[in-house]
């Protein structure tokens, strides 16, 4: 009886923690999506040629920030696991987008297929470069902190 009560209490506690994690990610997602929306509405990148540079901008910056924070123990340890997941998976994950890339590429492809392909390849190449730079910067920062 005592054991089963204890078990129920643990299970309930685990459920509460899990629920809190999901809500934290959701709150991060609210901020990330709003940031993406604000940046792409106010910074008038779109008028720059026909390439969708607003989406490009948020995706590249987000790719750098995500690997930088994930590969940096200093940043990771500065937050609780819940807060870190809210910031990484929630905020940065929602700040960047994949669905918009595809739809923009398809709309571009109806006028200029070559531009659509250039947009997708450019996003992948610069995105991977940004992810790599984030890892390199985080590793370098960690080393410098360790040596000093």
């Amino acid at each position: 009886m005592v054991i089963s009560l204890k078990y129920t209490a643990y299970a309930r506690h685990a459920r509460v923690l899990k629920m809190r994690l999901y809500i934290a990610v959701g709150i991060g997602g609210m901020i990330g999506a709003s940031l993406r929306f604000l940046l792409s509405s106010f910074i008038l990148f779109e008028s720059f040629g026909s390439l969708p540079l607003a989406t490009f901008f948020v995706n590249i910056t987000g790719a750098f920030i995500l690997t930088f924070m994930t590969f940096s123990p200093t940043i990771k340890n500065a937050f609780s696991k819940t807060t870190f997941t809210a910031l990484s998976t929630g905020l940065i994950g929602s700040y960047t987008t994949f669905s918009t890339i595809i739809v923009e590429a398809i709309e571009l492809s109806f006028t200029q297929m070559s531009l659509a392909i250039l947009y997708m390849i450019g996003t992948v190449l610069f995105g991977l470069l940004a992810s790599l730079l984030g890892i390199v910067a985080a590793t370098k920062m960690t080393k410098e902190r360790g040596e000093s």
Partner: protein
Amino acid sequence: MLLPILYVSIGGFFGSIARFFLANISNASPIGTWIANITGAVLLGFLLQVELSNALFYILTIGFCGAYTTFSTFGKETMEFMLNDQYGLAFMYVMSSFIVSFGIVYFIYIA
């Protein structure tokens, strides 16, 4: 401007939770992101073909689909494949994400 931000953030709340759920049930493997990105792109392509009220447009397209899909995690996962010398997997991951979603959404647009 404030109302659209509210709508976008409501969509972002549910979109990020849905993506996080997929990541959890796939044990944090890139399969979760892969499914979220493809289904999210297809959903967005479909939503842009139907008449939506202003509020629903912001909630579902920029909010939900935008947050449900992700590029930052996609880039991180691809780099992790490459750091593990799994170049074939990295290539397959990038190509399949783009080709499958582009193909399906293209079909939705011309259909």
